[in-house]
């Protein structure tokens, strides 16, 4: 069985994020990392194999040169190899473009199961897994809080506000997992060194047969017209409770017409 895990190199959540002149995320000088939400997908893939599922694990990412750091982190956690799609023309791709390129790459790698995180921690759109499933013509099972994989199918638990659902699909399928699937492991020094020796293949758009005009800023179906830093929320009044806090909060709620 072949498992492909989608991973993304994202800015540190605490970094000061800003836009570049072309309204894309300015990544220069910003520390990056493997998206925390993708670590759960990596963990699930690695533990499925540890629990006896006969499968190879390939990580797939798309992004600038430094995106390789995310692949190396994932490879340190486990798995067999990785593919980095790197091409100048990809800069500024929207979700449609991203899912198109990923679909071509996943087809080329070959797959029974595609795993991803529930969202990226930068764009936070949560649309790429659904788009990828649609492009590949396979079922999607998203926001899995737990999953079991057998030779011919995958079953997930999906926790909603009104019900917990069990959802099943035959393979191949696309599955996105939440942080509920379990803590991601910290790789040991030995595992990190082993990860450095695993193969990382680089593909360009030409390798994938994707027309550069269909991706990047120019190929995007959406255009950012204006960006502005959000004025930071002003801190309001802070009071120290001297037994009167409840009255003060209630007064405030009345003044704000909230009560």
């Amino acid at each position: 069985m072949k498992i492909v895990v989608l991973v993304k190199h994202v800015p540190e959540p605490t970094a000061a994020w800003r836009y570049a002149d072309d309204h894309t995320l300015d990544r220069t000088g910003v520390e990056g990392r493997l998206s925390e939400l993708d670590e759960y997908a990596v963990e699930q893939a690695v533990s499925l194999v540890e629990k006896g599922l006969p499968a190879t694990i390939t990580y797939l990412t798309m992004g600038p040169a430094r995106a390789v750091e995310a692949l190396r982190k994932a490879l340190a956690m486990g798995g067999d190899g990785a593919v980095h799609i790197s091409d100048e023309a990809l800069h500024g791709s929207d979700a449609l473009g991203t899912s198109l390129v990923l679909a071509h790459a996943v087809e080329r790698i070959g797959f029974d199961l595609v795993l991803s995180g529930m969202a990226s921690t930068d764009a936070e759109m949560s649309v790429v897994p659904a788009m990828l499933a649609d492009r590949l013509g396979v079922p999607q099972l998203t926001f899995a809080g737990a999953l079991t994989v057998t030779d011919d199918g995958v079953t997930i638990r999906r926790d909603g506000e009104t019900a917990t659902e069990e959802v099943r699909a035959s393979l191949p399928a696309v599955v996105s997992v939440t942080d509920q699937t379990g803590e991601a492991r910290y790789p040991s020094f030995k595992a990190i060194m082993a990860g450095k020796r695993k193969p990382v293949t680089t593909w360009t758009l030409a390798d994938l047969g994707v027309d550069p005009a269909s991706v990047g800023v120019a190929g995007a179906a959406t255009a950012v017209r204006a960006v502005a830093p959000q004025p930071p929320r002003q801190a309001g009044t802070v009071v120290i409770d001297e037994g009167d806090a409840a009255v003060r909060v209630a007064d405030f709620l009345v003044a704000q017409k909230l009560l």
Partner: protein
Amino acid sequence: MAEVLVLVERSDGVVRKATLELLTLARRLGDPAALVCGAVDDATTALLGEYGATRVYVADDPELEEYLVAPKADVLVTAVRHAAPAAVLVTSGPEGTEVAARTAVRLESGIVTDAIDVTAGDGGPLVTQSVFSGSWTAQSQVVRGTPVITVRPNAVSPEAAPTQPAVEALPVQLTDAARGARVVGRTPKTGTGRPDLADAAVVVAGGRGMGSAEAFGMLERLADALGGAVAASRAATDLGWYGHDFQIGQTGKTVAPQLYLASGISGAIQHRAGMQGSRTIVAINKDPKAPIFGIADLGVVGDAHAVLPALITEVEKRKG
């Protein structure tokens, strides 16, 4: 004027408030038309009409309930091809966002997600998003295909604009691919009687500082007094004090209620990402250095176990 198609979401058969918000927004862009997956009764049609739907498309097929999002995307694509709307509006959320995503792929249309505002603009709707954990806003436009826009609940207040909608049935033809993921088990949760977290005007949330699962009972009583929903920080859900499906933050839900009352929550950036769009924030925390005080309109440095019972009494007293 062209139609603006709104995908109707229902919870236990009742149209969600977020759908009425979409109808309100749709009126800025054209004639609102509602698309319902499933059977429709007169009360539903009347409600959609009260909020301005000039037409109600009905795609009724019992199979729609057995599968996840893909069949609804089939229906939405059919509706867009039939009605040729100026835009499609869907409520952001695990289901709506994915229906929108698949629809965008099939139509080769641009998609903008998690809008906090939508206005009419030259060359199509102007969509405002809050991005990078709420530190920036971006205004975007769809430049190819039918704009597909998902909108956060509470982006606007629903405003009535009564009309008599025409009802039109749409054929449902599920593709085999849409039948790929089947719901094989469903365990309903006991209803809390409180509003859905995403729709709630008031959210009362607790964190590690609550100290125990039992202490969340105080938050439930306060929420009930305020007519709100209860939520928790990741620290509290990880400790098992409250259900994970009520978690606010980057790995949970994003809410933007009229009032967010945070009790015993320090306010790490991952939590703030899920609630800083709230109109008014009140925070109670023992630690005067807690980052939550940096964004709270009113902060109380104090012990939640002392403040909350007194606040419940005070709120109940003033409501009479």
